[in-house]
């Protein structure tokens, strides 16, 4: 693994009594996209604000591209940020806006103009570059925000709920931009989101926060595997209902079997081990035809719900 572009060691931050982030640690390599998940108030935004030098951590430390957190302005040179609630100067054009930020990062007038042109083309805003931002749709503004976050070719890109309020097409576009930033620019991306399908699609790893604490962390596949006890749903012909129930109950690898909603033919079986074919085998051995079979659980959303419990309530 190349040098970690983001190395976080036990950062914490409290607001009065609220311990918004407690002991978050993480290492990220260039090109990695890491999903930051968690219910409302889990501490995602606070974590991002610490790592983007907006808040100082109460304890712990971190380094971006090898630069320690004690040198915030050097870190700011190397990060790109799309804040949770990013406002825009509505009277400016998209082009002026990106140029302005390129200049704030020290680029000359000429190079800022080129940067703006290239980035606006990359996010698909080339044709609207000269229109005032007030005429941009929400999706266009978010893409403009991503373009702005890229002006300094950041080593680490922080995006706090970048697809919030976007339609599926807008969401697609942002996700494509995120993947591009990681694969083609080699940036590390920290993506905070509530959308699990987004994480499954672009993230190599996830960190799940709950009440400021990391409750799960690892590759998406690992987290999925940790989902709540899995169940299988089977449908058999109505006349086989009773025999199917008893066959399943007897079968090794199957915990319990019950009719779903008291109906006949539709059965839910809990799995004891990792053998997801156990119910199928039991039914086939008993000579019962299977009309339908589906595994429940094993989805990131199940894992997420199981892990965060009723925290959202």
């Amino acid at each position, binding site marked *: 693994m190349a040098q970690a572009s983001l190395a976080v060691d036990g950062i914490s931050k409290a607001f009065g009594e609220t311990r918004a982030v407690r002991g978050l640690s993480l290492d990220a390599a260039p090109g990695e996209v890491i999903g930051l998940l968690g219910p409302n108030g889990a501490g995602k935004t606070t974590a991002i*604000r610490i790592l983007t030098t907006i808040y100082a951590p109460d304890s712990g430390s971190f380094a971006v591209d090898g630069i320690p957190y004690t040198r915030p*302005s050097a870190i*700011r*040179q190397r990060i790109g940020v799309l804040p949770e609630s990013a*406002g825009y*100067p509505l009277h400016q054009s998209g082009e002026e806006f990106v140029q*302005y930020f390129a200049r704030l990062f020290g680029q000359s007038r000429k190079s800022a103009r080129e940067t703006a042109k290239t980035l606006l083309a990359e996010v698909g805003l080339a044709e609207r570059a000269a229109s005032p931002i007030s005429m941009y749709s929400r999706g266009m503004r978010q893409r403009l925000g991503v373009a702005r976050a890229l002006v300094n*070719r950041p080593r680490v890109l922080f995006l706090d709920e970048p697809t919030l309020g976007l339609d599926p097409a807008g969401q697609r576009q942002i996700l494509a931009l995120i993947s591009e930033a990681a694969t*083609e*620019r080699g940036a590390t991306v920290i993506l905070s989101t509530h959308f699990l399908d987004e994480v499954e699609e672009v993230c190599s790893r996830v960190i799940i926060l709950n009440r400021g604490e990391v409750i799960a962390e690892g590759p998406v596949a690992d987290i999925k595997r940790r989902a709540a006890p899995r169940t299988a749903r089977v449908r058999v012909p109505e006349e086989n209902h009773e025999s199917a129930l008893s066959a399943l109950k007897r079968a090794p690898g199957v915990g319990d079997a019950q009719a779903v909603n008291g109906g006949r033919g539709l059965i839910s079986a809990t799995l004891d081990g990792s053998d997801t074919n156990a119910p199928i085998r039991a039914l086939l051995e008993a000579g019962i035809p299977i009309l339908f079979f589906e595994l429940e659980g094993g989805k990131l959303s199940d894992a997420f719900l199981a892990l965060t419990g009723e925290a959202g309530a």
Partner: protein
Amino acid sequence: MTTLTPEDVRREPALQLAAGAGGGWLVIAGQELRDIWLSARGPAIVIGTSLLLSLLTYLAASNEELNIIDQRDTVNLLAQITMALAVGVSLLFTADCVSGERERETLESLLVTPVPRGQVALGKYLAAVSMWPVLLIVAIPYIWVLREGEGVFADAMLGALVVGTLLVIGFVSLGLLVSIFSGSNRLSLAVAFFIFVLLLAPTQLPLGGWFGDLITQTNPMTAGSTFLHRAIVKEHGWGEDLDLLIAPAVWAIAMTGVAFIAAGRLRLQGSFGR
């Protein structure tokens, strides 16, 4: 999208560090100046001021035939009004400059750029101050028309330039200071304007006795205003009332110092009024 070459990686940060750390205040001042002067705001204030000065000049000119008001009094009035307007307007500009960005949610993006907090404040401060020389220039033709007798024009312009500059610097810093700590823009504008009116009010009151003198001497607005009045109307020489410049000068220096120390502590959220 182009791929980063190792060369880019080595070159870019160094380049950016060199330029980004030094010139941020200039870039911000340039943007803020455009925001004021290429939008409706700046020009509207200039037009409003010249309309007001035109009206006063007209009234004074028609009064002159009745010989009610001395010409020097009119010049003084115009200079004082121009000064108070410039102070009030530029104060509102800085009172908006940080808390307004907080409210429009553009501050966080600015704070994650490498431009130091002090430079962010400096850029906005300079743009706000720009209102003063413009309004002073607007006042020139009126004061020129109304001048009468030796040296009135020079006394008025020089006096207004010195006093006005000190007052504007002090109040623009006050606005900045309030804005840095204020969580809401409305609060920031209200507090800054309240302090301005509080200090301006005594200039309109008949102050006498030792207490009146104390106020006149220590309140930068009354001290500056009295200095200007004496220079224009009483034809005092420059050396005679230098003590009246102490309060405006202290005000300007102290407020600027405090505001820029505070700017170093600029935070995403305000300290009060959220």
